[in-house]
């Protein structure tokens, strides 16, 4: 009795997590352990009624696959950029020239942002969207260059 494995060990045997033949040998020769095993087995049998063969309706599986679309991070980044640029222009007309003279001329971050956005776009968008985004970026670049030319004289 003193050397008997504890109830958790018998539970592991019952659940197929413990396969030591010595344990089964002990179980066969120990009435106390057999009683403990039977008790655990009865309790596990009750919980076993929870098992079900219910299956996921095929319509739900189809819906999941239909709705699984990658998050268009590049598009969001591009839209955010356009929104910020437009707001800078609309809210403070004088600030636009400052923004272009100080911002665009010096900062490499805009270029990096543009590149990052392009990479994300390539990863997450359909070819048509990529083309559209590329056209938008090209238009934006032309606008920027034009403004720079005006600003720098």
């Amino acid at each position, binding site marked *: 009795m003193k050397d008997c494995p504890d109830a958790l060990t018998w539970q592991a045997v019952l659940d197929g997590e413990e396969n030591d033949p010595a344990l089964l040998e002990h179980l066969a020769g120990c009435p106390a352990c057999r009683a403990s095993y039977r008790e655990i087995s009865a309790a596990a049998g009750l919980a076993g009624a929870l098992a079900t063969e219910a299956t*996921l309706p095929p319509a739900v599986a189809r819906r999941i696959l239909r709705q699984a679309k990658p998050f268009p991070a590049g598009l969001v980044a591009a839209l955010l950029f356009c929104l910020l640029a437009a707001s800078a222009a609309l809210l403070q007309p004088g600030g636009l020239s400052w923004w272009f003279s100080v911002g665009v001329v010096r900062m490499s971050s805009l270029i990096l942002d543009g590149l990052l956005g392009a990479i994300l776009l390539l990863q997450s968008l359909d070819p048509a969207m990529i083309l559209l985004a590329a056209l938008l970026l090209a238009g934006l670049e032309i606008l920027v260059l034009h403004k720079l030319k005006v600003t720098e004289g």
Partner: protein
Amino acid sequence: MNRHLLQEMVEKYGNMVYRLAWRWTGSREQAEDITQETFLRAFTHLDSYDRGRPPGPWLCRIALNLCRNRSRDCREIPVDSLTEEMAAPQPGPEQRYLEREREQEILRAVHRLPQMYREVILLKHVSGLSYAEISAVLDLEINLVKNRLYRGRLMLRKALQRLASDEEGKKK
């Protein structure tokens, strides 16, 4: 590529997630919603998922979190609906009725268990996860999983015994 992986996951683990959600919520509609949300979240985080590990426990973890959130929003579990679709064919209507009654009793008892025991029991008996997998889902040590499973099962048995003796008392 990711969509292909998602399709494989849905085919392989869709039923497991659905059953877990169904047993937890007691509602087929909610189980469908949770299953859908689980896979969509998994898809969103597929890039950060360690593909060397089996996805079953990971999906169960997501589903379980969604189930917990639903439980917080809605305390009542419609237990009567839990057995509406039990698929196993039975020999006769009377026996089938009795077995359904028994299942409902067990399910009611399970839903009255404290959450920490209920979770382990459902992951073991509904999702069929191993101790190690349950430990990964719940972020618990294996010994704690064993302990909770043991206590949970005994609590369930006692609750059902109490219920049976109450009913006998009512009949007398």
